[in-house]
């Protein structure tokens, strides 16, 4: 089926891309003398609003602004389910924990999702599954029962994270756009690798690992879980036989280096979208680039706040889209 054209939207994205942060500006942020100087540079660049000084305040505003802009351009936002579904599951996790603990805070919810966070909270509070989409119902029920009966928050997270990855896999499968399909696959594969490494380090059982991992096309989950109960070297050995072989060196270095490698790989994959004038690809690429930019700025701001050396901050920086 041919992809739908988004000629007007892509043209607007091209103008917006001019406002994305480039490597030069990122270096300028890193070179800033203090956290406050960083914030000032960001505010001058048009980030956040007057009076915003908190990291999360600025970043949440910027994230919301990017999604509001895309919502203005695209009538049917379901094309971005691949990007929005993880937020729904994050909200489900937050809702279950809020209901379990009886707290009233709503600051843990992410507004950008396929369903309203209040609906998820209401569904959990009233135990009314019909308010939730079908793919979420069984995991919501299982996770809620687990947390109320056993109080095991980690198991609750595992159930929801697995359901999130499965929903992402299903959404990626029906996706006609390469960028979004590739994003879904990379996200699931990197999550599986992370689960394997963490499980190996904490000595989890094969059953637990298999319960946590989700199916994906570029990894053999069975082999990866077997390797995870064996040794870290076995995980690396298996990954050397997959398309993630270039990331093994980073994985050996640290899990956060591997995560950075995955994110840089995604940015490299979406770079050709800068020259695609018609499909949803450039819009998805813009959202991914914006997400990457927000992560990078968070690293710098937190680094500055904790007075980390510039070199230490630079090591953690992501590849920029522009």
């Amino acid at each position, binding site marked *: 089926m041919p992809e739908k*054209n988004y*000629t*007007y*939207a*892509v*043209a*607007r994205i*091209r*103008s*917006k*891309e*001019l406002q994305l942060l480039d490597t030069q500006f990122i270096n300028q942020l890193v070179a800033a003398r203090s956290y406050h100087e960083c914030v000032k540079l960001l505010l001058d660049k048009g980030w956040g609003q007057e009076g915003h000084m908190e990291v999360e305040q600025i970043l949440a505003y910027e994230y919301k602004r990017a999604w509001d802009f895309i919502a203005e351009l695209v009538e049917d936002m379901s094309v971005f389910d691949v990007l929005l579904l993880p937020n729904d599951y994050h909200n489900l996790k937050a809702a279950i924990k809020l209901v379990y603990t009886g707290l009233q805070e709503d600051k843990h919810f992410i507004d950008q999702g396929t369903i309203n966070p209040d609906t998820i909270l209401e569904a959990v509070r009233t135990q009314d599954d019909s308010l939730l989409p079908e793919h979420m119902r069984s995991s919501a029920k299982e996770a809620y029962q687990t947390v109320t009966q056993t109080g095991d928050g980690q198991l609750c997270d595992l159930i929801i994270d697995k359901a999130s990855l499965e929903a992402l896999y299903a959404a990626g499968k029906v996706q006609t756009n390469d960028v979004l399909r590739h994003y879904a696959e990379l996200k699931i594969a990197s999550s599986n690798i992370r689960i394997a490494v963490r499980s190996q380090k904490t000595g989890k059982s094969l059953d637990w690992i298999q319960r946590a991992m989700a199916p994906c096309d570029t990894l053999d989950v069975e082999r990866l879980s077997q390797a995870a109960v064996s040794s870290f070297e076995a995980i690396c050995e298996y990954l050397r036989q997959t398309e993630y072989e270039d990331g093994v060196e980073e994985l050996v270095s640290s899990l956060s280096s591997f995560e950075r490698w995955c994110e840089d790989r995604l940015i490299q994959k979406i770079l050709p979208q800068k*020259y695609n*004038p*018609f499909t949803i690809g450039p819009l998805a690429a813009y959202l991914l680039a914006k997400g990457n930019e927000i992560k990078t700025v968070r690293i710098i701001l937190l680094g500055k706040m904790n007075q980390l050396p510039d070199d230490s901050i630079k090591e953690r920086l992501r590849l920029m889209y522009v």
Partner: protein
Amino acid sequence: MGDLGMFFALSGAVLAALMAGIGSAIAVGMAGEAAAGVVTDDPSKFGKVLILQLLPGTQGIYGLLIAFITLNQIGVLGGTADISLIKGLLYLVACLPMAFVGLWSAIRQARASVASIALVAKRPDQAGKAIIFPAMVETYAILALLISILAVTGVGGISI
């Protein structure tokens, strides 16, 4: 048979105007969407993107020109309207280059224009170069126009 000849000749004229016109309408619309996107965020680029939007509109004008010459030749716009079947078919064939090349080149030129509009959005100082890319596609529309003009006027001189 004379009626059939006139029918085919008229079909040729109509096809040239119709197909090239459809091509240009699609193309100018497509480029217009992209141009509007750029102007929404930066109205100062209106002049630059307008040229790029108009470029694929020329095929429609070429189609109209061929249709006009053909109608004039076959006597629809005045004079005698006695066209043999063979001559009518020859007029039809003479109009086909403009009809097909007009339709296809307009749509392809629009794609190049949309890409160039994106270029102007990011690098307005490169607007001159951006115009060159879609303008290259124009070459083939002009070649088709030339052949159709030569053929239509040439058929008029043949006595069959």
